[in-house]
């Protein structure tokens, strides 16, 4: 089981902030996105994190991971 999280404008666009997913094959961050959002390609500039560390979209996910997708950050 992996947990997916969406933030800010991406959360609003998708209409949800979190969901859970069983994975049975090798998956990258990008392929997980495609699995759950087949009709909506990952917006350019989206940042991706696994277990709260930034990772590239090619990063392999494993069971228990928290995978997050969000737009460029604008704090401070």
């Amino acid at each position, binding site marked *: 089981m992996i947990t997916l*999280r969406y*933030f*800010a*404008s991406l959360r609003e666009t998708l209409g949800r902030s979190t969901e859970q997913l069983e994975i049975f094959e090798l998956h990258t961050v990008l392929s997980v996105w495609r699995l759950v959002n087949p009709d909506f390609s990952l917006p350019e*500039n989206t940042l991706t*994190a696994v277990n*709260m*560390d*930034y990772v590239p979209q090619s990063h392999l996910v494993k069971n228990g991971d928290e995978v*997050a997708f*969000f*737009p*460029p*950050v*604008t*704090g*401070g």
Partner: protein
Amino acid sequence: MTVKICDTAFDPFVEIQNFQNQLTLEGKFGATSVFIGTMRDFNNGDDVQAMTLEHYDGMTQKQLTQIIATAKIKWQILDCLIVHRVGKILPNEPIVLVAVWSAHRDEAFEACRYLMEELKENAPFWKLETLATNETRWVSKHINQEIAHDK
């Protein structure tokens, strides 16, 4: 080294004083560099009446802790404090406080600047502005290059 996320208004000077009072660095620090980011009532040419700051609870703390760890390797920092506001913010309220204590001025200045730039680059915060017209918009790094240099 302390990181605080606040969901209500904070007074940056009270935060610094309280933090400094519990330090045991009497006579050891010669330099304190502080940056405070405050909400303006305008941005990108528009009047802004409020802002909602969303963050990724947990990742924020993790990223800021890593940024501080890197700063400690680069400069001889005696201590530092980062406070960041989340939730609904009104103009003139502080958004972020970064304070660095060091023996020497160069290190305090440079580390404070570094922490602030890295925070803006990597800490997972997002600003939703409510304009004077009641319209809302997500602050973007891309619409206007200005924004990347703001605050």
